[in-house]
């Protein structure tokens, strides 16, 4: 295990060393690039003055709030559309036409309507998260073993119990996968909104560092975002394995 993690570090370390050597050798002067050693120092500096931690808190807050709202909306729509074939066919064009609209294109409108701050960012993140959750939970519901639905019919379970006792638990593993994907999207969108407009969080940190002509600090933020995303993914993967590793799930009716 430790051997494998050491091997996993080999490639990035090699790249970093090569980059450092290249920067030093060519006496690179750039407003967008900096040698790894300086990036590490900048990251260290940002930690000591706590600015990066505050920015992380802001970004994660918006990302998670947006993720939660988007997931709930996407799940409700996805389950409804997944259960009803009629609804699915009727909504197809609408969903497929709205889905590819990049949330970033809606930024100007969101800014005017909601102003700077958490609210606008949360709305944009939620908009971006609704679609993957909707699409995947719809697919999850539609792929539920038809036999289980027949069992529900034969037992004459009322609709609410059908959703709660059969549909949600059966689709849960795949819904969680959708959630995991959306968590990554939420982080990316939150940072993008901050870079484009919102004076908050890690994205604003990147923009400020860039405008302040501090490429080392800018790249330090970038590295930090990568680390957060990596950690988030590991966390959710572990959670997924814990929850759904066996065929048995947590929604036991007992």
């Amino acid at each position, binding site marked *: 295990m430790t051997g494998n993690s050491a091997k996993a570090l080999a490639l990035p370390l090699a790249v970093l060393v090569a980059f450092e050597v290249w920067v030093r050798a060519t006496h690179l002067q750039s407003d967008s690039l900096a040698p790894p050693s300086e990036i590490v120092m900048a990251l260290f500096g940002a930690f000591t003055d706590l600015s990066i931690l505050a920015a992380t808190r802001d970004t994660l807050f918006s990302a998670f709030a947006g993720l939660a709202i988007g997931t709930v909306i996407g799940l409700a729509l996805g389950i409804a559309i997944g259960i009803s074939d009629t609804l699915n066919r009727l909504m197809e064009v609408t969903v497929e036409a709205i889905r590819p609209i990049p949330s970033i294109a809606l930024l100007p409108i969101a800014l005017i309507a909601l102003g700077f701050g958490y609210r606008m960012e949360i709305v944009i993140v939620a908009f971006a998260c609704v679609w993957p959750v909707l699409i995947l939970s719809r697919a999850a519901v539609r792929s539920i073993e038809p036999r289980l639905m027949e069992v529900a*019919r034969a037992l004459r379970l009322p609709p609410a119990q059908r959703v709660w006792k059969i549909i949600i638990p059966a689709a849960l593993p795949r819904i969680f996968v959708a959630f995991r994907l959306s968590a990554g999207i939420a982080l990316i969108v939150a940072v993008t909104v901050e870079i484009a407009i919102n004076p908050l969080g890690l994205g604003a940190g990147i923009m400020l560092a860039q405008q302040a002509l501090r490429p080392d600090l800018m790249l330090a933020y970038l590295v930090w975002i990568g680390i957060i995303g990596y950690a988030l993914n590991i966390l959710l993967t572990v959670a997924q394995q814990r929850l759904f590793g066996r065929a048995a799930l947590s929604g036991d009716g*007992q």
Partner: protein
Amino acid sequence: MASAAKRLETVPGTPAPQIRFDEVTLQLGGKTIIENLSLGVQPGEFLCIVGASGCGKTTALRLAAGLYQPTSGKVNFDGQPMREPRREIAIVFQDYGKALLPWRTAAGNVSLALEAGGMPSAERPARIEELLRTVGLPGHAGKYPSEMSGGMQQRLQIARCLAQEPKTLLMDEPFGALDAMTRQGLQDEVLTLVAASGATVIFVTHDLDEAIYLGDRVIGLLPHPGRIGIELSVNLPRPREQLSTREQPEFLRLRRQLFDFIKATEQ
């Protein structure tokens, strides 16, 4: 008045059939799957249906369960038309792996039927234990279906069906995917359970030996569209026994008759 009179007329003297197909025709996707099927199953009877693959056995069973509605004709249960599935009718699906909730333990799966029946949660555990004991799974209440062998899963499905306290048990090739030994064991178990509960059974299988071994009556379906091609009464004594019953001349005679019938339909 008129319909009551007619009902009395069609079954004079004999006890009223529990399940009755009245000239039932079913079309699916523009194709006629079942045509003009008329059939009565008496309370407590064990009826087996055999037939070549694709002849409509499963479809007939689903009609009896109320999962399909006939295109024309009527399916009655206890004299009432079947509009939708009823809790008095339990179905054992062939693919037990798919019909169990993988996220619930054995106890939880049985519990589902009790919950649907509205049994208060305090009374459930005792009943669940009893049912699991009945099907021979007493120590396995906490196991998930994925931790059970095929035979155990099928027994669990039967336990859930028994939890419905059904008047009628519909079984669709319930042992199709099991190995010969497990299969024979379960056949005997089903016979015992059914004898104890007095339920009516319709049992679909493609194994001719199994049909004769289990049934009071065996019906062979003809394909395209599905209709009755042969009907045999099985006059083998009960209780039946795996080796000796199968070696009786009557058994061999019935088997040859069914075999020739199926052979003829396959061409």
